[in-house]
């Protein structure tokens, strides 16, 4: 055997060993050998997930100073603080794959890394805060519950922690919507308007239909992804339609109907042109979201520099230099 053949056979052996582990349902840990493609897929998915948590703070942050009561303001602050925490859990988990925080942030800023498309829509009224918590967090939960069983240990553990906190997010949003639906006619219309604008983008959060999804093959085989986009979307629709009915909101989909035979709701076609238009940078808020992140990141640089300078001075003092 020449050297090339030898490295090939070592590679093949490594892959076989890895896939047997996955097959057995063992978690993969940071120091375990893993195929390059597995590591790359995880870094892409986990960093996109982390960036989404952090960018997602912007549309909601827009309403902190205008929350209609002190109670609402406290809740919203706590919710947004949780989202910042979720971003940190996920960055922390992604870093175990050997990518630095500096690199992750620069990938976000250069546009190489994405964040969830949903946060490129604006939060126009207080009802949007209800719709975001109820629909956007509701959709995120369905995805995150499924990811609790993802094969990469640090990712799965971060998901377990996140899921414990998410149910409050969904409930506070639903409570806002329910309250508005018991309010004046204007408030009811405001709630329905938010519903109309957030419903379809929420369905798009699960990504393209299974038949069009470019990244699923290996991700399913390696148990990074445990359920398909369409399965997760269906789960979200089935549980949300009932909640909408209870509070008197109409789902903005004329084709939506219960399918007795399947035991699921059928829904109308999703406008994928809009999805691709927004994902490629032409949504209502893409530029604003990125500019804000870059500006705040740059404005915080002096704090990190000062902290490092302080540490260096303290270390020198300890050494009596």
């Amino acid at each position: 055997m020449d050297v090339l053949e030898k490295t090939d056979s070592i590679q093949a052996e490594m892959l076989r060993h890895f896939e047997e582990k996955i097959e057995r349902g063992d978690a993969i840990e940071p120091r375990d050998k893993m195929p390059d493609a597995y590591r790359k897929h995880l870094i892409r998915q986990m960093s996109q997930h982390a960036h989404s948590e952090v960018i997602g703070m912007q549309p909601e942050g827009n309403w902190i100073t205008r929350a209609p009561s002190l109670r609402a303001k406290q809740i919203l602050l706590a919710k947004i603080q949780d989202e910042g925490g979720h971003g940190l859990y996920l960055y922390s988990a992604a870093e175990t794959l050997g990518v630095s925080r500096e690199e992750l942030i620069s990938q976000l800023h250069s546009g190489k890394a994405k964040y969830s498309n949903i946060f490129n829509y604006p939060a126009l009224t207080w009802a949007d805060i209800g719709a975001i918590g109820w629909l956007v967090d509701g959709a995120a939960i369905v995805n995150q519950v499924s990811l609790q069983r993802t094969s990469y240990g640090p990712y799965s553990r971060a998901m377990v922690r996140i899921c414990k906190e998410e149910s409050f997010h969904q409930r506070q949003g639903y409570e806002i919507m329910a309250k508005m639906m018991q309010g004046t006619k204007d408030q009811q219309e405001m709630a329905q308007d938010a519903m109309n604008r957030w419903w379809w983008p929420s369905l798009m959060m699960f990504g393209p239909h299974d038949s069009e999804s470019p990244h699923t093959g290996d991700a399913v085989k390696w148990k990074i992804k445990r359920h398909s986009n369409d399965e997760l979307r269906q789960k979200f629709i089935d549980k949300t339609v009932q909640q909408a009915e209870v509070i008197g909101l109409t789902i903005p989909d004329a084709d939506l109907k219960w399918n007795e035979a399947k035991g699921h709701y059928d829904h109308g076609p999703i406008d994928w042109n809009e999805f691709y238009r927004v994902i490629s940078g032409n949504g209502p808020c893409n530029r604003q979201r990125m500019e804000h992140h870059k500006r705040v990141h740059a404005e915080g640089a002096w704090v990190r520099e000062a902290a490092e300078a302080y540490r260096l001075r303290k270390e020198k003092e300890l050494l009596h230099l």
Partner: protein
Amino acid sequence: MAIDSQLAIWEVFMQAKPGANYIHAGSVHASDKKMALQNARDTYTRRGEGTSIWVVPSDAIVASNPDDNDMLFDPANDKVYRHPTFYVMPEGAKAI
């Protein structure tokens, strides 16, 4: 402009209640011990998840190599005398 630094990584361990083991929670970035503890508190215990925190610089942690698992974690099933059931108790003696 200085190189963008996100500060050093610290691993966070939390004790859920007095008497329990410290369990790894994740990591935080911080420039020194004090900031690491503060960030660990803000990041990992917003709902009474813990009563005590340890923070350790990530690069101070020495981890075993998975390639050594067979050698390190051999269950030593041949050493049956390590288990109490290996021993014969005299008739009538009560276990302590």
